[in-house]
């Protein structure tokens, strides 16, 4: 068996299907994208090669591209610094509650994740509606009418409104991953710490959070990738508007390709998009270098 598996031809044969799929499904489209990014192709007729013109234009003059990237990064930060601490707190809460309540809460928090994005987006558009939306109605009821806004229709509030929807939609996933991580920490560690005199918050800061580090890292990585790729919710709520106030990279790319007939330009954006994703992830991995705890 060992001889067979160490035979180079066998290795090649076993690797080949995966390699072919990778080449044709990932590598080839990326190379094609780089090439198309160097053309002025409208998607109709033949492409003209124009070198790095599109890239120069995007980097030096396209303010919407930079705004879209900034918005994606803001969403990533919102996931990491707002959604995740809350999700972790709720995961700990659910874990502690136990019994039937644990199952009920787990299901309730996960509901938004199983509803199609199109449904939740439409629901939020209704909630945000300034005339009949629940949010303004609640503010009125609480005598906080001065806080009422034209949520999705105002350049000042559109982005934050979209970010809130995205955080709400992804909350269940973040919570579920933390919850699974918590379930993997042996109860004995807490018991030992209690015997040593540790109590309350200290138990979480000294045991839970350090031991959850690999889980937190995975969760953060998923959140950042999801933020950079954000498209559906934006398209279904504001389509990047008003103007480009709530524009995100994937949606912007889509508009350039399908509304502006700038297929070449959109491909150039997609190449820069991939580079941005890789750069953010490399940066993130460096920041998040951690010791591995074993238990």
């Amino acid at each position, binding site marked *: 068996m060992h001889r067979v598996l160490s035979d180079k031809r066998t290795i090649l044969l076993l690797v080949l299907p995966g390699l072919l799929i990778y080449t044709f499904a990932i590598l080839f489209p990326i190379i094609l994208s780089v090439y198309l990014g160097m053309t002025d192709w409208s998607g109709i007729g033949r492409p003209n090669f124009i070198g790095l013109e599109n890239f120069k234009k995007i980097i030096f003059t396209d303010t919407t591209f930079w705004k879209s990237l900034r918005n994606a990064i803001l969403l990533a930060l919102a996931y990491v610094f707002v959604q995740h601490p809350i999700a972790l707190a709720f995961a700990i809460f659910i874990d502690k509650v136990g019994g039937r309540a644990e199952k009920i809460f787990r299901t309730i928090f996960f509901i938004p994740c199983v509803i199609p994005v199109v449904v939740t987006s439409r629901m939020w558009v209704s909630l945000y509606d300034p005339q009949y939306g629940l949010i303004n109605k609640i503010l009125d009821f609480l005598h906080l009418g001065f806080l009422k806004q034209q949520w999705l229709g105002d350049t000042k509030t559109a982005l934050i409104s979209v970010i809130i929807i995205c955080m709400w939609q992804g909350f269940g996933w973040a919570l579920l991953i933390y919850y699974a991580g918590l379930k993997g920490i042996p109860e004995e560690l807490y018991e030992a710490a209690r015997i040593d005199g540790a109590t309350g918050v200290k138990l979480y800061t000294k045991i839970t959070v350090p031991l959850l580090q690999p889980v937190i890292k995975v969760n953060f990585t998923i959140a950042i990738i999801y933020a950079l790729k954000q498209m559906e919710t934006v398209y279904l709520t504001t389509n990047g508007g008003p*103007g480009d106030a709530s524009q995100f990279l994937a949606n912007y790319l889509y508009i350039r390709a399908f509304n502006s007939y700038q297929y070449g330009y959109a491909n150039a954006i997609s190449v820069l998009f991939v580079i941005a994703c890789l750069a953010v992830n490399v940066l993130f991995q460096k920041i998040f270098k951690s010791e591995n705890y074993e238990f």
Partner: protein
Amino acid sequence: MSKKALKVVVSVMLIAALIVSVFGLVQGNLTASASTQKTVKIKFLSNLPDRTSNQGKLEQMLIDSYMKANPNVKIEVEALQDEPYKQKFKVYVATNQMPDIFMVWGQPSFFLPVMKAGYAAEIKLDQIKDYGFKTSSLKDFMYNGKLYGLPRNTDFMVLYYNKGLFNKYKVKVPTTFDELLNAAKVFRKNGIAPIAINGKDKWILAILYQELVVKESGDQKLIYDAISKKSVAKNQILLKAAKDLVNLVNVGGFQDAFVAADYGAANNLFAQEKAAMYYMGSWEVGMAANPNFSESFKKNVDATYFPIISGGKGKKTDILAWHGGGYAVSASSKVKNEAMKLLLYMMHPTRWAKIGWQQGLVVPGQNWEKFMTGKETVLQKKLTQIFSSATSVSGTVWQDAFTPNFKTEAETLCQMLVAKAITPEKFLAKIEELAKLEVK
């Protein structure tokens, strides 16, 4: 009968049965293969997903009647909303799998690249000589003197209004811009949205801006000339129109968060009688006969000219009108002749124009006045009067008159203007910048 004779009779009968059955089999096969050969599948891409009212109903009626008259023809309809339609269309173009017959907007920003690249089949002018199309209506469906599409409608902008709400709050139907601003204030005070508009879709805002330019200048060509000559930023009339638009926003002229409202949301607001006015095109003529709308709404819906501006040179009869939507046949279709037959069948004046008009579903692109019966809805009568009294018409609207990217960017700038993300001065400066990049 002797044994021998019986054998002969049985043999003859068997042979006869064999011959008959073989003959029958061959005959059956021939018939089957003939009918297989004759079955024609036509793929039809439409932007009218509602098949029960307005243009969608008419389109489906004609498709059904064509299939009934031609049992060997099977028409597969794929109908999407405007924006998804544009994207799906683009995918078909990119993969070179065009549907046999497809809807097109007769605007340079949409149809010109399609005609230039040879995706649409030529329609000989002889074929439609009795169809009642005016040459002007075919202009944007032509390239290099050849015709590639047929318009289905006469599109023009009007201000729809709800008579009931105007009476209830004792507001005069506005004939001037100042009256429109005052009406807006009254309706807003009473919790009614003054004008319902679909600002999320952006194109309507650009059209409204052009409407204001025309009412300020009285010159239909001004906006096109300014863009072509790239001299936009310092044009005082264009600036005044931009300020008018912002002024209308400032008095609360549109529903709250109108920049986030799509077509359906704006239309529903007006149809549910929660908005007093609705700025939209003549293609909404079917509202007065739409079974989905309340009787109260249908009784109250009416239309008028967009108001003139005091001090402006435009007349109320200077209207924005064009022939936008239409159909084309794919040049690479395997059933090109059959698809062309279907197109000519549908657009025959006794069908699209006559049936569509008489059922109150469309304002056709062909002459419809000869089909008037006197039983028209209020909207039909009013729209006919508005269009027939027009003293000037715009043709393709400004944002559609140049490149697709000009359209996208100009519409976004209009949305930024009404969302007050940019000033009117900055708006014009940006449009000029855009014109320099996009208009050759």
